[in-house]
């Protein structure tokens, strides 16, 4: 069992967490000028990086979303931090 650290609650079992999305996705603007292909890429496109990754996860128990930096091959977690504007 791996332990992840919620910035708000501290280290907990991995079963309390769920992957949400890759971090730093920017909504394309202005909306009326966004093509179908660009919108589909925003909604569904992923990099699925091998190795270093920055991802948004949710701690299911407290409901907070946060950023996790980890290695997708070794599963080592380097850092977790609150989303911008949220105080841990």
């Amino acid at each position: 069992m791996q332990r992840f650290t919620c910035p708000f609650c501290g280290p907990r079992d991995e079963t309390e967490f769920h992957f949400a999305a890759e971090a730093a996705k920017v909504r394309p603007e202005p909306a009326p000028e966004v093509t179908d292909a660009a919108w589909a890429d925003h909604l569904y496109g992923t990099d699925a990086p091998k190795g270093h990754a920055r991802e948004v996860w949710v701690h299911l128990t407290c409901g907070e979303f946060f950023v996790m930096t980890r290695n997708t091959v070794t599963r080592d977690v380097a850092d977790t931090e609150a989303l911008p504007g949220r105080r841990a």
Partner: protein
Amino acid sequence: MMRYSGFTLFRQGLSGHRGWQPAWDKATPKPAYDAVIVGGGGHGLATAYYLAKVHGLRRVAVLEKGWIGGGNTGRNTTVIRSNYFYPESVALYDFALRLYEGLSKELNYNIMLSQRGMLIAAHTPMQMEICTRIANAMQLNGVDGTLMSGAEARERLPLLNQTADARFACLGGVWQGRAGVARHDAVAWGYARAASALGVDIIENCTVTGLDIRGGRIAGVETTLGPIRNDRLGIAAAGATPGLAALAGVRLPIHTYALQAFVSEPVKPMLDTVLLYLGTGTYLSQSDKGELVFGGGLDRVPTHGQRGNLPSQETITSGLLEMFPAFGQLKLLRQWAGVVDVVPDSSPVIGPVGPEGLFINCGWGTGGFKAIPAGGWLLAHLLATGTHHEISRPFDLDRFARGRLIDEAAGSGIAH
């Protein structure tokens, strides 16, 4: 190519089995090919075979970074079925099943296809309604799906937990009689042998490091064994697909997850079907050697590492023991994981992407093995003609921009 038959076996037996030849040639890259396929698993090898066999292309190469069949083709639970919900999916997976049914004869290689039937079992009245819906959909799509009663299921599966307080008492489910299992390595080896006999170069230990793109067209690939010129490139590399597509500047709707499976010590014959329980998410079959081969849903953590994690192991094995308490006596022989490419609507992506001449066959998620002949056939069609086969058209990447998703997770309740 040496033809396999009872007579060949007899003749080789007389000479002490010293005359067997390698099943396929170990090739080194030539400077140029008509078409190159990245990924020497089932899908890639089948693509090469159908390119040569059906479309007459002779200068074809398959590039594999490890050894052929060493990725997900060798890391699955060998189940073959076409019990899906949407007409597009049934057309795809039943095409694969029909090709599988004639494959041993076509390839002159025994893939040990065993159509022992598969039950998707329900343990609540609501799940029985879901099963009825799937059976109806299968019949409307012209596939052999029927509803099986609880009594019939318990007769077929006498070791199922049938006690009064069983948490997952079996009420019956959807039955597909043509479903079954095949020898997974034999599928890769059979396609490799038949493709090699038609002149296809199968190149192992060759990693693609870059793509040569000129004027918006594929011109070649850079590999660890040097550059290769080609104007048609097919990618069939499962979990490695996002990284390869990124070389062409293409982003795909794919998350990669580990999917793990398990094999127990061998026991005497006690299970002559494939069983999937909707309630536990665990599925199993008994191999011809007697081992119980079982698996379940995806690991919860996206990863590229080919190993499983403990919470999923607990879920899958506890599901097995809920269904068959007697299996608590069994020892686990081994456990493994493959990296699978999961798409939001749980259907594959087949079609052209990015620069002209580039085609992908990916996104099979947890179910690529059963689709190998169809995936190969359709990617070969794309590479040879540049246009979609009618079966692959709905699975083009453009379905995400058009909103025409084929959501099999919702349709047939598959694991991802």
